[in-house]
């Protein structure tokens, strides 16, 4: 359980985190979503007691993190890949961290196996790829078998296999009753992993909602259908709350019906379907729409005729 109340962090003139309040519950994966520079990392550093809030406070399992007598057993965190001395081996790095709280070599070897770094455990971390660094960071987060896990952009630098692994790991940890708080700037990733979402932009809270609700409100429920009998299908689908558009011959864009219903109707009337695709992209679009005003760094869009 992580509770932030009116958390604020200013660096001189710049406000990185602005009056942020939220509660992260155990038992589910909570996504922390926002564009680059939204204050996600700063918030996580404040949770871990690395940065002091300018005002407001944040507690983990009922107390500020620094006041826990056995902090690594309360919270495990991956705050940035490679928070490790480049000259030290992965195993020695973990042994040193483990020693602060009396964890022995057996547990260290256990987490090394768990994150799949067995082969390189005795190699110096300076030569690690970003993905290996992430795995090592996750290993150190799991050392103390903590009830709360905080990961800052854990999928950065991971290959598809690694991304799948971390998705399952996070879900598994949450199903054991742990609090799992994961930041990302990718809505699509969070939609697959998280159950709840905290969305921030420019340090402010934009949304605190379940992924399901966010998806429902965000997506336009658009389903793309391609069929050789498009016109027949159109008349079959049309109803009071259903609209059917067509941007090209043989293709329909249906709103108001989900893909299951459309497929069933088509089958019942023996209409051949070439394609039946719920438009997931709308989720990412909705996220961008939501955070558009809050994006810190816009790429300058060069349109024809306006060359800077």
């Amino acid at each position, binding site marked *: 359980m992580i509770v932030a109340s009116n958390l604020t962090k200013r660096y001189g003139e710049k406000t990185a985190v602005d009056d942020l309040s939220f509660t992260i519950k155990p038992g589910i994966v909570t996504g922390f979503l926002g564009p680059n520079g939204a204050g996600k990392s700063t918030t996580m550093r404040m949770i871990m007691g690395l940065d002091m809030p300018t005002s407001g406070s944040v507690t983990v399992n009922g107390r500020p993190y620094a006041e826990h007598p056995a902090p690594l057993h309360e919270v495990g965190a991956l*705050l940035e890949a490679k928070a490790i001395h480049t000259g030290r081996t992965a195993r*020695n790095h973990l042994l040193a961290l483990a020693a602060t709280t009396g964890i022995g070599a057996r547990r260290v070897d256990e987490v090394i196996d768990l994150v799949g770094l067995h082969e390189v455990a005795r190699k110096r971390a300076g030569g690690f790829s970003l993905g290996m660094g992430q795995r090592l960071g996750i290993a150190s987060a799991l050392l103390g078998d*903590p009830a709360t896990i905080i990961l800052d952009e854990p999928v950065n630098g991971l290959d598809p296999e690694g991304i799948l692994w971390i998705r399952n790991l996070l879900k598994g940890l949450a199903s054991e009753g742990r609090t799992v708080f994961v930041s990302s700037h990718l809505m699509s990733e969070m939609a697959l992993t998280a159950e709840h979402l905290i969305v921030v932009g420019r340090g402010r809270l934009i949304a605190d909602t379940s992924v399901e609700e966010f998806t429902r409100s965000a997506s336009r429920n658009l389903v793309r259908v391609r069929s050789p009998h498009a016109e027949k299908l159109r008349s079959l689908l049309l109803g009071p709350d259903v609209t059917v558009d067509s941007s090209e011959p043989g293709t329909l864009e249906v709103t108001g019906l989900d893909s299951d219903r459309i497929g069933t109707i088509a089958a019942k009337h023996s209409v051949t379907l070439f394609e039946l695709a719920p438009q997931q992209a709308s989720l990412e679009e909705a996220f961008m729409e939501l955070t558009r005003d809050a994006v810190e760094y816009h790429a300058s869009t060069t349109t024809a005729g306006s060359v800077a």
Partner: protein
Amino acid sequence: MSTATATPSTASVPTAKGKVTQLRVLNSEWIKLRTLRSTPITLAVAFAIMVGLGTLITYVHASHPDHHGHTELINGAELSLAMYRLAQLAIGVLGVLVISGEYSTGMIRASLSAVPKRLPVLWAKAAVFAGSVLVLMTAASVIAFYIGQAILSSYPAGGAVKMSDPGVARVVFGTALYLTVVGLLGVALGALIRNAAGAIAILFGVLLVLPALSDLLPASWAPHVVPYLPSEAGGALLNVVPDPTAMAPWNGFALMVGYAVVLLAAAAVMLKRRDA
């Protein structure tokens, strides 16, 4: 006193078991110190400077008497240990790196997450490093001394001294003490500046450059300033026959320790207050 929280955690670790203690942090820092390749290499370099170069310079000095046939212009103990001036570079740099290396690599965030009260990390780093330097440099000083005296005693006018001679044991063991405090100054500056280049520049600016600049002071000021510079105050311990222009040996060393304590205290305050 088991604080039963409402969290349905399957991972119930007895809190008392995993408590962070100063002893455990010391162990952690000891692991950190010896698992970096640079630590043993740098300490070995300091050892080799003290013993190897110390022996060489003693031999060269003894075998090349000046025009008057004298070689004992420098006390035999001081001669055999003179390379501490070079060894302090290795020790001071390593002291800085022990902590600045954590900032440059990002390791500090892992360290302070594990020990969020922070200060035990600084104390443990200082203690583990100072302990290692003291043990190794005591051994190096004693070895360099005995080899040096053996060489000197083979020359008629070599000027060899005995450990039991007045002031000699103080100089031999004081050399290791002086180098240890140089290391601690490095640790404190590394923690304060967080950047290796800056901390090393300040450390050796103060230890080596300031005394050299003392010629620029008005003659009436110098006696009131120069003896109290860290290197001069600490160096007072390393004269077999106390230098009348310097502080008394142990007073001087105490002042040098005082500088290190003040810097470490400042580093502690800043470590506690600044964002990591």
